[in-house]
């Protein structure tokens, strides 16, 4: 993807997370900044900060006094006077601050523990097999477009209780919301309106015909004896859809991208099933897809940097995961890394609500893939493209199948 912004020459003072160099390979940039800064600044997007060490990323994640989650996607548009204010925000609870945050989060948590997640596993496994069957007989195809991208969208569509046919439309909307952050404000607003209209239709349908799914769960949920306002239900549905799809698609794609280039890791995963647990965590650490964002809540001095109220701050968990102060040889993927306190799902009270679901999807996607295609490689490494913005993963991933599973 081409950035609409001028190219970055100095990432310490003028970084841009949509710059082609960052999109192609952000790790050397973060390694360099970790040595030099370790808090970078940019005037782009109206002023943005970037801490790149594990220590500083943790510090921000745990600090709800100086930072607000009112908006978590850096773009030219900041929350305006008409938006739901902190502590609720547009898409609770990700855009909520304490104390409201924990009220909404507690309401949602039961829907994302290991038990309901395990109930979605048979559907996920059958879906993966169906997608792989569709590639049968072909020696090359796109693992991102024909496999990885379909898995999370169809799982969340099923859990929310929408029609599987709506999955395609969801994907295009999400791409606009998350990746095209440098579009003009008016164009983005228009896209959000489309999302809201779709959700409103779903809500009406679920009110008329309640069923056993996540949408009905949200509509029936009560806080202090009161049902949630419809705009809050809608915001949370949009959040679950956006948060659950691009992220997991990216994790599955990045893991396949790694395995395509590392025959020894493929062989070990296919022959040592007991390795899957540490392997998943290591792939999540090394290729963590999600960088979050905060807004500075009040003027203050952050380790010698003059933070101003309303400044953006990118919270790069993937950079924290590559910090040599915490991880031995962080650039190396070791599938049996036993000590792995990675922050792929964030830290603190905004820990990814869907982490159990994401881990299940990633595990099943890799198990099913390796059972069918134990040996594969990138058919054209130069054709691999990566998403721009705060969610990083391969969007084109052409692979060549070297051997079919039994």
């Amino acid at each position, binding site marked *: 993807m081409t950035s609409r912004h001028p190219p970055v020459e100095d990432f310490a003072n003028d970084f841009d997370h949509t710059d082609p160099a960052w999109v192609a390979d952000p790790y050397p940039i973060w390694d360099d900044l970790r040595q030099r800064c370790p808090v970078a600044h940019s005037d782009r997007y109206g002023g943005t900060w970037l801490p790149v060490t594990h220590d500083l990323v943790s510090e921000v994640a745990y600090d709800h006094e100086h930072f607000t989650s009112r908006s978590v996607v850096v773009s030219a548009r900041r929350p305006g006077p008409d938006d739901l204010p902190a502590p609720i925000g547009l898409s609770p609870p990700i855009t909520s601050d304490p104390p409201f945050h924990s009220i909404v989060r507690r309401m949602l948590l039961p829907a994302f523990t*290991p038990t309901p997640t395990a109930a979605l596993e048979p559907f996920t496994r059958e879906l993966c097999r169906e997608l792989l069957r569709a590639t049968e007989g072909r020696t090359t195809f796109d693992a991102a477009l024909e496999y990885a991208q379909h898995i999370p969208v169809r799982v969340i569509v099923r859990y929310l209780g929408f029609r599987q046919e709506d999955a395609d439309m969801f994907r295009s909307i999400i791409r606009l919301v998350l990746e095209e952050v440098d579009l003009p404000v008016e164009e983005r607003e228009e896209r959000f309106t489309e999302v809201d209209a779709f959700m409103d239709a779903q809500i009406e349908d679920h009110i008329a015909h309640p069923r056993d799914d996540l949408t009905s769960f949200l509509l029936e949920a009560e806080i202090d004896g009161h049902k949630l306002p419809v705009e809050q239900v809608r915001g949370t549905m949009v959040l679950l859809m956006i948060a659950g799809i691009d992220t997991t698609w990216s994790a599955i794609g990045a893991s396949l991208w790694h395995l395509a280039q590392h025959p020894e890791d493929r062989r070990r995963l296919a022959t040592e099933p007991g390795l899957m647990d540490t392997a998943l965590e290591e792939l999540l650490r090394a290729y963590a897809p999600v960088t979050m964002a905060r807004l500075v809540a009040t003027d203050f001095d952050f380790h010698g940097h003059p933070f101003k109220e309303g400044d953006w701050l990118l919270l790069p968990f993937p950079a924290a995961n590559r910090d040599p102060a915490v991880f031995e040889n962080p650039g190396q993927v070791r599938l049996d890394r036993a000590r792995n306190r990675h*922050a792929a799902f964030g830290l603190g009270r905004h820990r990814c609500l869907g982490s159990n679901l994401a881990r299940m999807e990633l595990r099943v996607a890799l198990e099913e893939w390796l059972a069918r295609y134990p040996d594969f490689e990138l058919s054209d490494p130069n054709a691999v493209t990566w998403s721009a913005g705060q969610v990083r993963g391969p969007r084109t991933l052409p692979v060549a199948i070297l051997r079919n599973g039994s």
Partner: protein
Amino acid sequence: MTHASFRVHVDPDRCQGHNRCYSVSPDLFELDDLGMSSEVGAGMVPAGLVSQARLAVANCPEHAISLTEAPEINPKINTEVQP
């Protein structure tokens, strides 16, 4: 016979429900309805599960788990936590 015994504990103020400890050692940890973890029973670690307990500590992103050496085996407490 007297030998070192260990006790594991999840700090409920730090736990955010990553569920890594439960995944590493479902015998030592249990989850509540919100997916938050706590130690099973009094947290006494059977001798065969000490390495699992250490792994749980080393994989908690929130540093919520502590493993402490109990002074010596108290047979009464020990029988309570036999799985």
